[in-house]
């Protein structure tokens, strides 16, 4: 194999599994170290650079970081990254004076942002401090987008949301509430230099089955129903509620129903549990509230008497599943009618743009989804950008934030007549962590503590008020334990081949035996030498070693980043260095031409 090129920022970035998995590439281990030191405000600010809404996302993020966490490969449970993010938000001091200020004068460029959700706010967050005049149009009377309408207040309190939105508005962003944009063509005629569409995926899917129209009064579309609850247009529901679908919206619907007076709530799933779309922790939280989840029930018809819903008929399903967990066959084994007063449909949502005229210059594909560039987020109409769920269909908040950052870069370049595709690449900076012989500026010892569980408000108490936040946050003891579970994967094992004397000390001390010195060979042979069985994780290969010409290899899969190799190395050929990945922002794109010229 060729020696590994560790100067490629992606190589070490990928080793930090959580940061790599996060769409916004939040530097997780770095902010967890700050929390460990009690520097909550610093942790919050570091977090905010990439994910903009640490308080919101510390509660309701989809957490792609956690399944990726290296900890799951050396024991059972990942670090409670999301909960620690909330710790930083909960315990921060007033940080308003550390935020970018409204600039003294603008740069004269006007940007229209449609929809006051996470994507638009991220664009405004990046561009307003640079002097852009950002105007956000919102059809509702309150901002937040799906963070407000789809996520119930018992999971995300309004004050948390409003505080973080407030930070961005204070940068001089003009928010026009109750101002829907009804025509793209009209908007394009106004003197905006660029337009950003962040209107989400607001259209809930319907289920056309017999009885649907007759029983319409008690059949609700999940996201529309949640929206009505959020705006207090709905404050009660019947006693027996069926939720159709088993995604995260379904979980919010069933838990909200319990708070609006339902006695019995059943979530009806068509397939077995392994195929559920909801995050495991949202399922757990719903089941803790005594919601029944029934598997293998496929909706067939709505039952109604005298125009009133009385129940629903389901086909009982049976599935054949192969060893890869894929369904190969299914059959109906019977039928069952379940009585109910209300049904909530939570089976998915689409983006919808009734206000964009067909001749507005924006191309849509055959599924009525706008054609959006995956790098620049520009549509087929120059100067019109899409982000969040509006761009590629429903994803999640943290993806919307990432889209916002990228669109902000594009808008900045567009407004200055620069090429949208010439973007600053990610950059890597390595900083030493060595403090003394066996001393590092990170807590390198492996801590075998188990993941801390979140404490919840008692069941009786939480149902009394729709706005009572269920999760209590971590206690100081839980914080102290959980921060030490982080393996500090961003403190990289950096190897300097010319210094190696091939004494084997690092190989022998490694607790996971991920190192070896072997004659260079093809990848399968080298992987076999260190039992590197995870093909998704890289195998590091050094340059030829001075004495024998063999190579040092390392399986990145299971490395604990404990630094024992570096502590045991007599010549400091192994060193532990913090890899700082710089993700491009709209404000660091200047003078790029010179960089590209120099590179050529």
């Amino acid at each position, binding site marked *: 194999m060729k020696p590994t090129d560790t100067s490629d920022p992606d190589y070490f970035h990928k080793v930090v599994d959580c940061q790599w998995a996060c769409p916004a590439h939040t530097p997780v281990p770095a902010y967890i170290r700050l929390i460990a030191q009690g520097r909550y405000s610093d942790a919050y600010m570091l977090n905010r650079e990439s994910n903009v809404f640490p308080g919101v996302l510390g509660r309701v993020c989809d957490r792609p970081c956690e399944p990726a966490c290296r900890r799951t490969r050396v*024991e059972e449970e990942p670090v409670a990254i999301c909960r620690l993010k909330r710790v930083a938000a909960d315990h921060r001091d007033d940080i308003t004076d550390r935020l970018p200020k409204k600039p003294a004068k603008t740069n004269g460029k006007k940007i229209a942002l449609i929809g006051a959700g996470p994507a638009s706010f991220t664009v405004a967050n990046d561009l307003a401090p640079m002097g852009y005049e950002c105007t956000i149009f919102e059809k509702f009377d309150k901002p937040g987008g799906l963070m407000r309408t789809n996520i119930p207040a018992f999971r995300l309190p309004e004050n948390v949301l409003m505080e973080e939105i407030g930070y961005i508005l204070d940068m001089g962003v003009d928010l026009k509430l109750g101002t829907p944009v009804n025509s793209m063509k009209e908007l394009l005629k106004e003197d905006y230099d660029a337009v950003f569409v962040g209107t989400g995926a607001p259209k809930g899917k319907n289920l056309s089955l017999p009885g649907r129209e007759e029983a319409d009064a008690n059949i609700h579309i999940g996201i529309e129903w949640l929206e009505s609850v959020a705006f207090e247009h709905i404050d009660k529901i019947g006693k027996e509620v069926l939720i159709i679908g088993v995604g995260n919206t379904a979980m919010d619907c069933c838990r909200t129903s319990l708070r609006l007076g339902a006695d019995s709530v059943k979530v009806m799933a068509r397939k077995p549990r392994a195929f559920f779309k909801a995050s495991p922790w949202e399922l757990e939280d719903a089941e803790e509230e005594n919601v029944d989840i029934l598997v293998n029930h496929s909706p067939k018809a709505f039952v109604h008497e005298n125009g009133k819903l009385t129940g629903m008929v389901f086909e009982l399903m049976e599935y054949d599943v192969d060893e890869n967990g894929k369904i190969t066959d299914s059959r109906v084994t019977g039928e069952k009618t379940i009585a109910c007063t209300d049904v909530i449909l939570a089976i998915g949502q689409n983006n919808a743009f009734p206000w964009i005229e067909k001749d507005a210059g924006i191309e849509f594909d055959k599924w009525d989804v706008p054609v959006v560039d995956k790098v620049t987020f520009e549509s087929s109409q120059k100067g019109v950008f899409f982000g969040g769920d509006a761009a590629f269909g429903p994803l999640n908040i943290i993806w919307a934030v990432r889209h916002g950052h990228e669109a902000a870069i594009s808008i900045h370049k567009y407004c200055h007549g620069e090429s949208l595709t010439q973007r600053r690449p990610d950059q890597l900076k390595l900083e030493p962590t060595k403090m003394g012989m066996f001393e590092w500026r990170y807590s390198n010892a492996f801590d075998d503590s188990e993941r801390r569980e979140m404490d919840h408000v008692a069941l009786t108490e939480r149902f009394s008020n729709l706005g009572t936040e269920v999760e209590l946050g971590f206690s100081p003891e839980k914080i102290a334990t959980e921060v030490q579970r982080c393996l500090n994967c961003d403190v990289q094992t950096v190897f300097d081949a010319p210094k190696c004397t091939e004494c084997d000390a690092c190989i*022998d001390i490694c607790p996971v035996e991920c190192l070896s010195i072997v004659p260079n060979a093809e990848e399968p042979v080298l992987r076999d030498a260190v039992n590197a069985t995870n093909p998704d994780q890289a195998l590091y290969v050094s340059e030829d070693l001075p004495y024998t010409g063999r190579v040092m290899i390392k399986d990145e899969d299971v490395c604990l980043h404990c630094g024992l190799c570096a502590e045991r190395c*007599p010549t400091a050929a192994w060193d532990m260095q913090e890899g700082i990945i710089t993700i491009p922002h709209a404000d660091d794109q200047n003078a790029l031409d010179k960089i590209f010229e120099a590179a050529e």
Partner: protein
Amino acid sequence: MPSFTKPKIHLKNEKKNDIGLIRADYDGVMSTLCAGCGHDSVTAAMARAFFELSIGPHKAVKVSGIGCSSKTTSYFMKEAHGNNTVHGRMPSVATGAMAANPHFTYIGVSGDGDSLSIGAGQLVHAMRRNINMLYMLENNGVYGLTKGQFSAAADLGSTAKKGEVNNLAPIDPCALALSVGATFVARSFSGDKEQLVPLIKAGLKHKGFALIDVISPCVSFNDHKGSTKSYEHTYKYYHKAVHADYVPPSAEIRASYDDGKTMPIELHDGGLINLRKLDSGYDPTDRASAFSKVLESQQTDEILTGLLYIDETTQDFATRKKLPGRGLNTYPYEELNPGADKMKDLMREFG
């Protein structure tokens, strides 16, 4: 010494041996030796060999003398039996222990100082008696624990860290072993586990005295330019003559032996040591030929390694002396202690 104890991690794809243990079950306490010491590498090789042979730590005995190398018995198989003895006296203690319970696997760990000066007489007689044990002689050419004085294994002309030249002839442990009747004589290097681990396995399975002279560089006092026991020098002049692989009795034997380069040696347990001759014309079953090879290599810079000599036919001490084939702890008290009257009868014979 590292800032924290090496944790025991259970990986999803961890390998278990025949008795259900993982490699880390064969670790000991954290080493207090210098970072980069060859001995730590030998320790790791021993732990791996015991793991691969599926020998339960409670069925093994570790004995050692005094010195850096002798400390290392603490650093592997923490659940095994063991004794750190007086300087140079490890072979006597090992002999006694072996006589008391022949069913255990015995490994002695010592260094060139402990073995070739104060303990030279002990070592020679253990080899002469063909005690059933593996003797690891971790050879770095200096007294590392007392800051780097030459040992009896230091080569002529090699220098101490401050430049002093050694002008006394060395004792070659392999030549010594061949001259007094050891039945398994090998040399290896701490930096070559590919060779060392199979050698340790073969040595443990050999019935009789096995000596492995392991070049194990002293990273603090003998890893400099003028040293002939440094990592750099050893890698440069390292020469593999015969490779030995232990093949357990249960394993299917696929290798073909008619190519003149491989040679199976049958062991008492039904397993094999499969010898791969890397030097043609070398016969590791011929003591005289092995002896002359070792002497020849002394005239050159070449470090001759591998299983240099093996004799599986000579009976070990316990067999030759008709020692009971069971541990003394399995005898009832009455049988072990014949009583005062029998003792008087016995004493009368000398009267």
